């Protein structure tokens, strides 16, 4: 994963462009897209509480790694969908999916020694998909580039709506 800020910038850029096409996609829904971009990185809890520590405490084999697989991410998105009010499920769920999906795609570009990264279809299949190996998660470049794109889109958006009264659609 590039750092989380880069993922949030990517989700923001996608949602902002879609908002020009779909009027209902206001800033409030863009926020849901940004939350969706966070879901795959729940796996970072392992930095605070390593799998081995949990394993010793529970005395069963344990790995946070499932959170970073396709199946684990789908479960996390579903939790978000359940937490939304009934009439927000469709739109909110769509945005959560866009956020989490863009994160998965970006993660699939990471540099690994084997050239293979995410288990998209686990637990159905173990296969780790091939990666383009573009960057390491610790490099600042992806954040700077995606940040530049996000800020440009925000400015373009403000310019487009300068003369119309869309104050809610910041």
């Amino acid at each position: 994963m590039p750092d989380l800020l880069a993922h949030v910038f990517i989700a923001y850029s996608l949602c902002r462009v879609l908002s020009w096409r779909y009027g209902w996609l206001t800033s409030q829904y863009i926020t849901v897209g940004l939350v969706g971009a966070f879901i795959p990185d729940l796996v970072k809890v392992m930095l605070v509480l390593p799998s081995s520590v949990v394993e010793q405490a529970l005395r069963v084999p344990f790995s946070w790694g499932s959170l970073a697989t396709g199946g684990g991410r789908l479960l996390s998105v579903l939790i978000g969908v359940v937490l939304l009010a009934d009439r927000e499920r469709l739109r909110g769920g769509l945005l959560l999916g866009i956020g989490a999906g863009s994160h998965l795609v970006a993660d699939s570009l990471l540099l690994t020694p084997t050239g293979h990264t995410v288990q998209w279809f686990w637990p159905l299949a173990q296969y780790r998909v091939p990666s383009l190996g573009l960057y390491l998660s610790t490099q600042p470049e992806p954040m700077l580039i995606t940040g530049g794109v996000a800020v440009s889109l925000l400015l373009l958006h403000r310019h487009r709506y300068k003369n119309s009264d869309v104050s809610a659609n910041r």
Partner: protein
Amino acid sequence: MVTAAKARVGMVVLLLAGHGLLFPLHATQPVNPDAWVLPGDEEISESPDQYLGERVEIGGIVSETSPLTVQLTHVDYHVRVTGTELEPAVGDKIRVYGTLTGSRMITAENAFVVPQRGRWYAWGISFLAGLWVLSRLVRHWTIDRSTLGFQPRAKPLTLKRALRGEERIDRGGEDA
């Protein structure tokens, strides 16, 4: 509605239980070279002879540079790495893909250094991202206390309105 709230809590508990099942399942995943699930630090340290001649993937801290020796992550085991032109310093974190040619010997096919300074940078910047998204969520969305469902606020919350206690009037978003 109490039933809606109960159903919501029940569903969340059910989905969390799903996660609870996946954690041990992922930990006990078998090695499967065809799917690129390769023997790693734990497998090699526990039974190196079982994986002799196989493709492996490891990560760890460089403890010696000549010969290149790596202390594996989370396990008390070190291996020598040959076949790479990488010239890391002692203390560098490296990741290696290669073949296990001896119980403590890997012939690398690919290896690179993970910059350590970058890791702190990634944590800090990710924390900022969290604060940004959390503040947007609080400003734009609210929880309906009767159903426990998230719904958009009629007007985004500002610090001024929050201090005046106006956010309570927002519930419902629009008239039912």
